[in-house]
């Protein structure tokens, strides 16, 4: 790992994500209203809220996947429209849809994190392949590199997707429900991996319904408000206030949708 080591408790650590009075509308309806968010290097952020609270929209906006109407978004100090260091940012999804329609090996999955227009005219270098190798060792799945990704368990696939992000050299990981659909035994391995990354100084933003398994890791909790307000109702260190945690846990499926179905991709 080449990036600098930042501690989350340093108040002067670099601001990695800076969201200022963000408004996003779908068909004239506010999905996000006046959202402020500041994430410093090395923080482990949990972005919480029930379905429809706009947490998915918020991270999609931060990642440049969702146009916004008002406000400002900065990544590593640069306005989103002029941000060019996308290799520092990685989205870690729950799964890769394309890996279930055609066989894709674990190795290919990890190498796919290195694909970029900047490498269009050359082969992957020895150093880049070494980074992918190291990332697979880090997540403990080097021996499975020739296997089909979808032959691995849910938790193992999640670790491969983290390795994919690490291989690209990203130091900001945005993870969608990292522990959803992972059995108890694998949640332990997954959280100890996240803990190691946190110790290395990687900034992690987790979008989730529940803190199960990762409670001890979170340094910064952000709760997005009830459906009516769609704004930040809590922003600070854990634990989140009891009345809000009720709100997060009990109203999670107004549409009867399974929690796992809340992908970033939809």
């Amino acid at each position, binding site marked *: 790992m080449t990036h600098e080591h930042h501690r989350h408790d340093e108040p002067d650590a670099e601001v990695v994500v800076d969201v200022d009075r963000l408004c996003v509308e779908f068909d004239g309806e506010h999905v996000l209203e006046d959202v402020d968010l500041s994430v410093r290097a090395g923080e482990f952020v949990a972005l919480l809220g029930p379905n429809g609270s706009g947490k998915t929209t918020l991270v999609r906006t931060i990642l440049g996947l969702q146009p916004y109407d008002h406000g400002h978004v900065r990544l590593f100090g640069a306005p989103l429209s002029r941000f060019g260091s996308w290799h520092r940012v990685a989205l870690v999804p729950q799964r890769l849809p394309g890996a279930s*329609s055609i066989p894709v090996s674990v190795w290919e999955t990890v190498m796919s994190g290195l694909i970029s227009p900047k490498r269009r005219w050359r082969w992957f270098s020895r150093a880049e392949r070494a980074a992918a190798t190291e990332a697979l060792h880090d997540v403990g799945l080097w021996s499975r590199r020739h296997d089909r990704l979808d032959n691995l368990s849910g938790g193992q696939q999640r670790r491969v997707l983290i390795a994919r992000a690490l291989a690209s050299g990203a130091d900001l990981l945005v993870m969608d429900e990292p522990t959803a659909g992972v059995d108890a035994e694998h949640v332990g391995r997954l959280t100890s991996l996240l803990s190691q990354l946190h110790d290395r100084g990687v900034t992690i933003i987790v979008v989730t319904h529940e803190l199960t398994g990762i409670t001890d890791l979170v340094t910064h909790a952000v709760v997005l408000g009830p459906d009516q307000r769609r704004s930040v109702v809590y922003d600070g260190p854990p634990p989140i206030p009891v009345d809000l945690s009720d709100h997060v846990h009990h109203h999670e499926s107004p549409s009867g949708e399974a929690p796992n179905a809340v992908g970033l991709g939809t």
Partner: protein
Amino acid sequence: MTAILDFDFMRRALVAAALVGLIAPLIGVFLVQRRLALLGDGMGHVALTGVGLAFLLGTAPIPTAMATAVLGAFLIEFIRYRSRTAGDVALALLFYGGIAGGVLFASLAPGRASSSLNAYLFGSLSTVAQGDLLALGALCLGVVAVVAVLGRELFAVSLDPDVAAVQGIRVRLMSTLMAVLAAVVVVVGMRVVGLLLVSAIMIVPVAAAQQVTRSFRATAVLAIILGLLASLTGLVTSFYVEVPPGPTIVLVALASFAILAAIAVPVRRRRREAT
């Protein structure tokens, strides 16, 4: 075999079949991965309007079909981007329009155009002209060059468009490119395989290959080998049996799928027991 090679038209047909057998699975593997297996079908229908138009206007079929299909590719990507929910219905409309337009224009055209439309629907051994080969060869070279340079980005977009976008890959550009590549394959294959069945050569060898492979690369390589084998065997068979080459090629490809699927079931079971 020597008898076949004595005929000029068969030599040209064999070269054309080899070209489509090579590039159709190369593009098909991305389409299947992106769950757009039917896109090639649609492109074939749209290209048919181009053929009908060529009959009507008296222009050369390959460039006219090419222009129509590429236009269709842009239109399809535009519709897919614009209408998220009803996207497949909008595409269906375009496809029906394509086939209806093709038949209508051909019927309006003077002379025997309507009957020779059949050759474009199901392929023909005798329609590949000497000049066509140069055009088909150039188109194939173009497809291979584009995949050589941009294949990794196409792969990343097919894996997950959002994740690819965060990596700095231009997702819409790559999606449009994929549709244009499918359009080129359709036009290359329309002479020998025919517009109604050409997309089968994009999809069936890929479906066959993935029964026994564990990686994307291996799937692509095996699919190309199967595509080549199917199009050449099918063409030779259709010469002796005197049937249109398109259906013969597709049935050979389907047979390879059945064989590999039969092999794969016990292999997979053993692999599962081993782990």
